[in-house]
């Protein structure tokens, strides 16, 4: 008799969707998420294209669905260590990393006031600081605090937070633990990482303060981001008069990601709307190879061109230089339509870095096949392990949700078919 339960690895939009769709059809589902909260990358997005609506709105519905569904169990700070067995009967070992805060935590926040240690805020890609004990972000689900314990140790803090916690919720000695699950199928939905912009040395990321990536801009535009939603130059906090978006920064590139990352064109068009809203007169340029606004997204492309007054330059940016006196950046590109190499100066440059599948750096601990960029080859490898979302293809949110819904059915099939 096959086990009817399903483990979903990854609690981002794809994983949550796959889990809910299966659970609402009657399956027992577990979610294992490595972050201390569910929601994944979309929690860090300010608005979705093309509606320019907040991702937290849809996440809230999904979290309600999780709250109300007795068939879903989720684990945060969890990683899969080992998979054995076969379709219909997998034994999975999960490692649960310590949160250093136990279930007694009420979310009251007293600990934060007492904490003397500051750390880079990973939610905002290190663009601001938070306390070593913190709520990962405003909408964190579950609403439980977490401690970056290395920082406490380094600062020699013995636990000021524990002293003020009335609920004995803080456990500085908490250890990681392992647990075993027996499931009929596994959905692997560990998503993507922004392609490492440090590998694009010719664009000066990491060297030039005013070169940022698209995911960083997303946080800069967010009301609850490091700048309170104001898009400014990181070097001096100044307002922006000109901004360039460099498309395919590390995508469609023989030396980096060979695939197109699918979403960056639309993301940059969306970013143009963020900038235009804050700066009615700013010059906005997008350097591109093709604008890939497929299907009905074409309407968004049309709208942004009409309303945001964006200059589109066909040509891949070759190099970025910095004027050290004022932090201005010069984008050197071959404008294919003007048939010339242009050198234009901007206050801020945004690299539209693409999607590297998480499996490029953390493979699935089972027999699976990968393509040259590290995306999982669907249908190859261990039967009963179904891949969903951006580990398979670079996808926008609606497509990832579609894909995850399909993956849920395939996982159910495994529980029906497996031995």
């Amino acid at each position, binding site marked *: 008799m096959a086990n009817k339960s399903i483990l979903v690895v990854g609690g981002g939009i794809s994983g949550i969707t796959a889990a*809910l*769709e299966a659970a*609402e*059809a009657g399956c027992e589902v577990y979610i294992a998420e490595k972050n201390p909260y569910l929601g994944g990358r979309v929690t860090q997005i300010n608005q*979705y294209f093309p509606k*320019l*609506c907040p*991702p*937290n*709105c*849809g996440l*809230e*519905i999904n*979290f*309600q*669905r999780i*709250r*109300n569904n007795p068939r879903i169990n989720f684990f945060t700070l969890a990683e899969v260590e080992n998979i054995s067995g076969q379709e219909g009967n997998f034994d999975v070992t999960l490692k649960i990393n310590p949160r250093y805060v136990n279930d007694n935590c*009420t979310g*009251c926040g007293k600990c934060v006031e007492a904490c003397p240690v500051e750390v880079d805020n990973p939610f905002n890609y290190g663009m601001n600081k938070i306390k070593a004990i913190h709520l990962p972000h*405003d*909408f964190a689900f*579950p*609403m439980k605090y977490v401690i970056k314990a290395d920082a406490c140790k380094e600062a020699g803090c013995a636990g000021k937070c524990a002293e003020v916690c*009335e*609920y004995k919720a803080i456990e500085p000695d908490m250890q990681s633990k392992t647990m075993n699950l027996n499931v009929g199928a596994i959905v692997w939905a560990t998503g993507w990482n922004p392609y490492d912009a440090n590998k694009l040395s010719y664009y000066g990321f990491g060297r030039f303060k005013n070169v940022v990536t698209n995911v960083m801009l997303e946080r800069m535009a967010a*009301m609850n981001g490091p700048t309170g939603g104001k898009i400014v130059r990181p070097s001096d906090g100044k307002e922006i008069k000109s901004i360039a978006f460099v498309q395919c920064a590390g995508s469609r590139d023989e030396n980096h990601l060979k*695939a*197109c*990352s*699918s979403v960056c064109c639309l993301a940059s068009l969306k970013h143009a709307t963020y900038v235009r809203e804050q700066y009615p007169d700013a010059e906005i340029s997008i350097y591109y190879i093709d*604008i*890939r*606004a*497929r*299907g*009905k997204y*074409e*309407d968004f492309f049309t709208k942004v061109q009409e309303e945001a007054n964006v200059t589109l330059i*066909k040509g891949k940016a070759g190099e970025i230089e910095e004027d050290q006196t004022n932090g201005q950046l010069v984008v050197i590109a071959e404008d*294919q*339509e*003007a048939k010339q190499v242009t050198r234009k100066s901007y206050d801020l440059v945004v690299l539209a870095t693409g999607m590297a599948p998480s499996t490029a750096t953390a493979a699935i601990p089972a027999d699976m096949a990968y*393509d040259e960029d590290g995306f999982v*080859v*669907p*249908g190859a490898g261990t039967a009963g392990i179904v891949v969903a979302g951006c580990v398979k*293809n*670079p996808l926008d*949110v609606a*497509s990832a*949700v*579609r*894909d995850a*819904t*399909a993956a*849920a*059915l395939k996982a*159910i*099939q495994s529980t029906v078919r497996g031995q």
Partner: protein
Amino acid sequence: MEKKIAVYICTGCGIGDALDIDALSKVAKSEFKVPICKTDGQLCGPEGVALIKQDIESEGVNTVVIAGCSARVNFDVFKFGPDNIVERINLREQVIWCHTADDEDTQMLAEDYMRMGLVKQKNMYVPEPYQVESFSRNILVVGGGLTGLTAAVESAKAGYSTILVEKDAELGGYVGKMYKQVPMKPPYTDLEENCIPNLVKAAEDAGVKIYKSATVENTAGAPGMFDVTIKQGDSTVQERVGAIVLATGAKPYEADKLGHLGFGKFPNVITQSMFEEMATAGKLEASKVAFIQCAGSRDQEHLPYCSAACCIESIKQALYVKEKNAEANVYVYYKDIRSNGQYEHFYMKAQQEGVVFVKGDVTEITEEDGKLTIEADDKTMGTTSLADEFDYVVLANGMVPTAALGDLVEEEPAADEAAAASDEPKASTPPVIKANLLNLAYRQGPELPALKYGFPDSHYICFPYETRRTGIYAAGVVRAPMDMLSAVEDGAGAAMKAVQCVEATEMGQAVHPRSGDMSFPEFNMNRCTQCKRCTEECPFGAINEDEKGNPLPNPSRCRRCGTCMGACPERIISFKNYSVPMVGNMVKTIEMPEEDEEKPRILIFACENDAIPALDMAGINRLQYNAWVRIIPLRCLGSLNLVWINDAMGGGFDGVLLMGCKHGDDYQCHFMKGSELAEIRLSKISETLDRLGLESERVRATTVNIMDYDKIPAMLDEFAADLEELGPNPMKDFA
């Protein structure tokens, strides 16, 4: 079952310091005579939970009222089984975290919330799930092309009896006629054999019941009990099914409209599908071929959208030419090559094979001696380019969903004179096009409502299978323009939703977004006046009508938003745990200070999906606002019944504010038009206010999205300031 109520007040997280807990307990014990009222320093801790559990077990408590944190947290801790009612009173996020501690007004707020919570539980009952009679678990798939076959095979493989209806004599649809197909797997560079024969075999092997040369003549019923009449030749068959996948595909855009590109003028200017036929028939002989992208698509004169599949389909067809004749010259004229994702590899492959890609608009096509010449405005050369000697020019002519083909359903003339005479504002509803695909026996028209460009798509990014006709899921190119790889996923995705709808319906539960909800609207028909508002306003077409205009509800189509309840002027519609009297009594239980106390009261009806979380966020961020507000969450603002506003204004409230989701083109209401309907209803209340001698500015609607929490304090304080200017509600002292 008699209710045995117990109230538990948590004093943790600063609640005990900020409020007078004894006074709060007194509200429960003395005013409401609640037999058990306990306090605990940390109710969510093991001891607190044990305290509640013990009372359930030994005292027979079955209605647990917890005054502490928001229901958005500790949901898993305070779960006591389906037979017990749990009501949460939010003293933390919406009282002590956003109002002054140890303050008279804050205390009054907390005490009112205690009263409201107690009244609410008094008016609610444990829902009993709705059971469908002669329930069917079968899945019907309409359309036997790539998407439909996939949906049928995938649902059959998951263990569901599946029925497939295809209008043609053969299965396979558009893809079935292809010579070869685009790559569907890594390395995404090679042409693949047509997958349809294998898919047809898989459908047969999986036991899919197939009707060919058949159409759906009529679809009646509801999830779990759809009765579908299938017409095959001269005979008809009835099938009862639980859920439906609509996968009727798309048609190529009419090439006759592309005369400017030489179609119809020159025989060798052909469409993608004609080229495909030629290749399949083995008649492809050419030494020079051009493909013209966006022939009709991305064109405001024709199809404003991008048809999504044409770029990679043209790359594929370009490779057909190269496969046959490696020396052949192949040009692709394009605006942008949209080989998204891993199809980039396919684009690279075509470039390696020598296919020439020209970015530019084709300005003219001419013919001489059967050979075609293309004049284009070459964007990358910066010149007008002229290329001649083409054997064929292939137009990538895009796609039009089958759901868009047909006449619009005319709105029926208003039945009663009052409605006919009035020019009342109406909520925007998408049109229904008589496309002859499902022929639904629904009050709101025979097909899925057509969204932009006629695609019966979802409006939501997060929920692509949200459907306005519960249990019917569109998939593939009928839903949205997409390539084959996406269509295969979409077929499986829609099959998942169909399967899930069957399972949820069997359990008597709602599907998305109120998944799992077992409550459903019940109609007290004795008092119905046949005004038809409920049938017209239901966003999901859940309510039919008999010939006299009486509503005929279909609970398994219902999404439990309560729009019908809000619409009903006779207030005959209620849910077991959500009703007009329930909310009305919550309004009435709020203590109304005398006018000379100078303590205004503002009632807020807030959407529980977005505005309520935003209000919680304001609390979590310790943003402060006035303590005159009393907030009532609604399932959706669409469920707002105007009598509540009468209750409030007649009862002395100084103002009422609705907090709902954005409406309009990019609406964010999870029930499509709830907030819009609420505003329309509000526009009708000025008459009532006039009668009471009240200014209409006292009742307002505003849109709040979940990220607007930083704006909430100003929003509430400005409203309070405006009301202060208007002066107190003169009804106050009569209340």
